[in-house]
């Protein structure tokens, strides 16, 4: 068998044939003509040819016409996708002047108990010419309209960066960057919509889903899918470490999956109660099996308060809480304290748990 180079092994399927041994010899015999090509082999000149081929492609990618070295051949024309920036979406400008008002979407709640709610949702300006960053400050919820007609609702203490235009070419058109938590309602389109977080990428077609990406103890990126279909994959840094890994899972409606902080791949999809994952949208508060530390941080963000923790309080203990309606922070803290055998008191800036 060593007579011929044999870089591609015979496929395992052929081993099942009655004359597998003969097939294998014939397979090996074909190694004498590798690489198969018309005329020249893959010699030194080929590297240069490859460079030239790449340069030619790069030129075409820049929008130039393909340099056709063989004009006698007519290829199917490349479907034209000219650079076509659309006018700046009006919502971007509108946001500048709508501090606070737009931060609270639901006006049907029975009286808002939170002083924090008066804290405006900050609509930040532009981080770069081509992208827009929107922030929901502490205590605020903010709605974002995306250039492609999709929308997102940001939880307190979250930011979302999206491209200003729906570019046909730029790659960023349907990709947004999320820090924190948001609920997305994505309009269907032929192109994939992607949410990037610090450790994950959520790839979707038209769908509604929640993403929570908190880079903190007990955090990570968690996705809960309401309708449609999404794929959750680890981001490139994780893939570099584990290029062969199946770093993606697909979710069905009613399922959730997450990539915990420090993990390189998503956990398996599991049934979730989407109403819980999205309770924050109606100013409810729901956490499932999260460490006390993460819960207190979430309360800080949601209610725009500081919560101090006395030494000795075990922050790693996990807890599950679920309020569908808006609650006063005192109610929630009281329940947390009761569940953990702790107490809390009000301070000038917020609360202390001890």
């Amino acid at each position, binding site marked *: 068998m060593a007579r011929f180079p*044999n*870089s*591609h*092994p015979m*496929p395992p*399927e*052929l081993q099942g*044939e009655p*004359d597998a*041994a*003969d*097939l294998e*010899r*014939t*397979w090996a*015999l*074909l190694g*004498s*003509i*590798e*690489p*198969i*090509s*018309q*005329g020249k082999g*893959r010699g030194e000149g*080929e590297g240069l040819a*490859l460079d030239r*081929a*790449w340069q*030619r*492609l790069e030129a*075409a*990618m820049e929008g130039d016409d*393909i340099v*056709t*070295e*063989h004009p006698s*051949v*007519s*290829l*199917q024309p*490349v*479907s034209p996708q000219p650079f076509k920036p659309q006018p700046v979406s009006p919502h971007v400008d509108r946001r500048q002047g709508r501090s606070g008002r737009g931060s609270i979407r639901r006006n049907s709640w029975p009286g808002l108990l939170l002083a924090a709610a008066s804290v405006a949702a900050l609509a930040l300006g532009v981080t770069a010419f081509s992208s827009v960053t929107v922030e929901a400050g502490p205590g605020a919820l903010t709605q974002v309209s995306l250039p492609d007609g999709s929308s997102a609702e940001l939880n307190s203490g979250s930011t979302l960066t999206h491209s200003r235009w729906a570019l046909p*070419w730029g*790659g*960023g058109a*349907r*990709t947004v960057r999320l820090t924190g938590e948001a609920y997305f309602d994505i309009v269907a389109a*032929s*192109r*994939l919509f992607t949410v990037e977080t610090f450790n994950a990428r959520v*790839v979707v077609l038209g769908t509604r889903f929640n993403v929570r990406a908190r880079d903190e103890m007990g955090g990570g990126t968690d996705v809960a899918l309401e309708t449609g279909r999404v*794929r959750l*994959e680890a981001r*490139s840094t994780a*893939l570099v470490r584990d*290029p*062969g890994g*199946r770093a993606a899972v697909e979710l069905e409606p009613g399922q959730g999956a997450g990539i915990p902080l420090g993990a390189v791949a998503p956990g398996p999809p599991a049934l979730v109660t989407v109403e819980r994952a999205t309770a924050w949208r109606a100013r409810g508060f729901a956490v499932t099996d999260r460490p006390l530390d993460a819960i207190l941080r979430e309360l800080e963000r949601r209610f725009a308060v500081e919560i101090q923790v006395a030494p000795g309080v075990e922050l790693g203990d996990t807890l599950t809480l679920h309020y569908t309606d808006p609650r006063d922070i005192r109610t929630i803290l009281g329940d947390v304290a009761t569940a953990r055998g702790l107490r809390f008191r009000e301070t000038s800036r917020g609360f202390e748990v001890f």
Partner: protein
Amino acid sequence: MGGGEAHSSGQAHSSGQADLLSFWFRRVVASDREAFESLFRATHDGLVHFAASILHDEGTAGDVVQEAFLRLWQRREEHDPTGSVKALLYRTVRNLALNVLRDGERRERLLEERADLPGAGAPSPDEALDARVLEERLRRWIAELPDRQREALLLSRFEGLSHEEIGRVMEVAPRTVNNHLVRALRALRERASAHGFTAHLEG
């Protein structure tokens, strides 16, 4: 992760390459140009050879492959990054090449040219010992295989695609790919032993 599969070293090599390709592909779908260049450099020559096997013209084959990569880049966001980029590229190249064949009157010319290939005269025993002769013969015999068989053989033996991937390129079931391959290999074996290359075929 399929864990627990035993690989021969050869298979481990090609599965390592598959990992790399799918890693680049995922980056390409996320608009990473460097990954695109890596993918291009790793697969370009194989694609040109494959296109040339359909078109019998390396220049045109190069054009077709350029077009295929350009389309891959322009529509990168539409692709499922977990799919096989090899299957995608080879299928695109194949379709483009077949379009070129269909479009042109080249087809008739090609058929004439193929008829002009030197006939398979009975080899002398001396010839049979000459590796260069063997190589030429093998090339000719491959060229004489039915199109589908030749295509499956080239993609499997020389481009390293799996049955699954070839099935997607040729738009047939993997089982059919296997049939084409087995028939191609048996035909080549028959030819080789009829022409006195038996020494090469004995274990």
